């Protein structure tokens, strides 16, 4: 009889643990209207008058990162990231790695790129990366690192170093999905070089739905 009770308890605890792992967070992120680009704004930017202006390429939703912070330690870590340099741009523009993770920058352009981390003194100093070669950089602290190119000012990307493994990107409809244990988290949305949304989220059993509206960038905020 004692052995039976011990078995029931183990089964029960196992079932409880299995239930917490299976929680899913689903949601959508609604972006504000596309602002007029402020960077490198020259004298003129006018529509052609023949055809309607097409969507921005690449899709800005690809640069949106959703993370849930507050997960218990011991969970699996994020993998390292790879950034391709082609078409005189970084792809993806925003990369997410765990603390201590590395980012490999591959130069697929025909010209060398001299990447560096903005506002950093020793971290990733400017160094040319010839065409066809790659450069790997390790990031030891959580934070946002903006990567620039000395030769092409328009080239810039962001490396997000986070301590949580729950990171998601938006699909072409702006939806994301995260499988997380039940518990209380902080939902953060990174958009256009800033954490545009930060809100508390309690994940319960089964599924949790969340819809996030990214406010338009203010003048005091980061660039839109």
């Amino acid at each position, binding site marked *: 009889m004692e052995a039976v009770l011990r078995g029931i308890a183990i089964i029960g605890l196992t079932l409880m643990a299995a239930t917490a792992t299976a929680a899913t967070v689903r949601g959508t992120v609604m972006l504000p209207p596309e602002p007029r680009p402020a960077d490198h704004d020259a004298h003129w930017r006018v529509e052609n008058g023949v055809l309607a202006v097409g969507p*921005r390429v690449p899709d800005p939703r690809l640069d949106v990162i959703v993370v849930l912070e507050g997960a218990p330690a011991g969970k699996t870590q994020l993998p390292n990231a790879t950034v391709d340099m082609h078409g005189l741009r970084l792809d993806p523009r925003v990369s997410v790695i765990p603390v201590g993770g590395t980012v490999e920058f591959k130069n697929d352009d025909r010209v060398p790129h001299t990447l560096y981390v903005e506002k950093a003194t020793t971290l990733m100093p400017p160094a040319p990366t010839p065409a066809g070669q790659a450069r790997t950089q390790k990031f030891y602290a959580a934070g946002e690192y903006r990567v620039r190119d000395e030769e092409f000012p328009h080239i810039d990307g962001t490396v997000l170093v986070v301590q949580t493994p729950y990171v998601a990107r938006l699909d072409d409809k702006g939806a994301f999905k995260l499988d997380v244990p039940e518990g209380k988290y902080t939902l953060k949305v990174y958009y256009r070089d800033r954490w545009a949304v930060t809100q508390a989220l309690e994940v319960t059993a089964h599924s949790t739905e969340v819809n996030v509206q990214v406010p338009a960038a203010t003048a005091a905020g980061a660039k839109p």
Partner: protein
Amino acid sequence: MFWSKTWFLLVALIGGLAVAVALLTARPMQRDLEHETGARLERAQHSASLLLKVNARKWIDTAAQVGTDAVLVEALEQATKGPADLGLVHKTVQERLRYFNDKMKVDLVWATDARGRVIARVGLDEQVYKDGIEGFPLVADALRGYRGDDTWSLGGKLYRVAASPVIARDHYAGSLVVGQEVAGELAQSMKRVLDVDVAFLLRGRVLAASAQLPMLGQLPLLVDQHFDEMAASGRSLPLEVDQGGEGYLVVAAPFAGEAEDHKAAYALIVPRQPAVTFGYLASELLSTDPKTLPWIQLAPIGGGLLLALIIGFLLMRVEAIGPAKRLARASQSLARGEITRLDDDRHPGRFGTVARSVNTTLDRLGSASRMTMTPPRGFGAAPEPFGSSRPEPFAPARPESFAPPRSESFAPPRPESFAPPRPESFAPPRPELLHERPPQPVPTFERPQTDTEPPSVPEFENRATNARARAPEPPAPPKMPLLSDVGAGDTSELRQTNVRNGPVVTSGPAAPTMHADAPGRTDTEPTNMGPDFVESPSEVFTPITHKIATPRPMPAPQGLSAAGSSAQRDPFDDQTAVASPTEALLRAAREVSQVAPNPAEAELEQEFRQVYRDFIETKQACGESTDGITYDKFSGKLRSNRQQLITRYACKSVKFQVYVKDGKAALKATPITS
């Protein structure tokens, strides 16, 4: 003079105030000019921005026009689809781009497919294609339908680029990019339009400039230091740069577009305003078109200045020029004898003081003249007192003729010069002097000249003339010969002395009278009058001292006062005073000499004997010695004196008279003109 002085003082004060204001306003004016220069630069920068913007729009339109080419559209559409032979498409597009670039003359023309892949290049990196450039925001925007412009920093060069989408019916087939390098040609073009020097900078170095200015080396650092300000406000404030002793003002502005991150900027440069000085103002005024001067504002200033001058001139005319002219006219009338005094009431202020001073002098000299004038002797009426309104031959024509009397001067007659010879001076010589005087040397006088040989007549005259010319004092009158020299047994020297001294002309219309004063007289003779012959036992004759003064100077001498010089003064100067005869007197004498021949020698000899007898008798009567006095010597002396007087005064004859002066015998020679 009060008002004219006050007026000119006021004008001077106003002028000084104006100069002070001009000096004090130089610095505000300097600041205003520098501010104006800075504002000019800012206006130029605004114009430059508009110029670049308009120019960019032209490039956009050009790109759009090229992007409509059907060949390009078809080729780029096929390239976008993928299956086509990209090499063939590349050549097709490149040829087409070259065709257009022959007309556009731009530095780069790029064509991309819809994915941002370069299909062909012309101008820059022509051999490269298939690489993606969709990362350029300009290209990305063009691929989605925008037309725009930008600035690119490629390979250390700065390009102004424009892009336009290539439209294939209902979709975008690619993009077309045209660009022009920012170089010296653009700088020169902007300079022609803006009238300022232009320099382009990129990544801390000067790309090109319209002129090789020495300050260009400082521009990168200057732009780097103020780039944040430039990026925030679109341009910098006017910045001062000094290089090589020259100052400049610089306004820098960033190039709009991507190259701004590479600190691409253009700088507009003008020389700093030079220091505001009078020279600068004058040069600016001279270089200004007169039509642009503010004549309306300048008219009151010029009018006021002209009015001040007119008022000053009128005041001067009323208070100075007019009274001076009146005083001059009155003085001329006084000189001509038309008036006897100056009406000092008619002359205001200091001119009245001058008139009163002249009147006072006239009064004093007139009184002295009345006291000392001698009565006429054979030459007409007595002279008028000094200051008389009637012009007399011997009346002074100029006030300086009335200088205070001096013993050696011609001009002022000494009182004794006009006095008639005193009868007591005809004392006869003492017999012992007439007959027993041994030959002795001529008494030594302190003559300034130490020549052993007596000078000739011209030499003496020249010396006297020169001496007069050197000294400012009136000249000493010429001396008559000393009869005592006759007794000394040296008749040649005596004659030369007589010739040297010359006759004495009396003042006034009276004929010149020669006096032979007895020696030793003590009336007014100074100590340098010569030796006292009476006291000297060696003297036979008393010297004949001619004391005829004249109120008028000699006709020709210059520097009459030179005789007053002690260095040149003759010891006999104080004993003889000769005045020049008047022109009327000389004319009358000449007339007489022409119609009346000289008297016969016998008559002359008889006259001389009579004079000799009278002289001997007079000396004896006076108790004087007549030793050594012989008729031959006596008559020789008389002849010499007579001839000298006749020569000098052109008179007909000379009358010698013996008289007693101071208890001693003396001779008086009187020229006879009729």
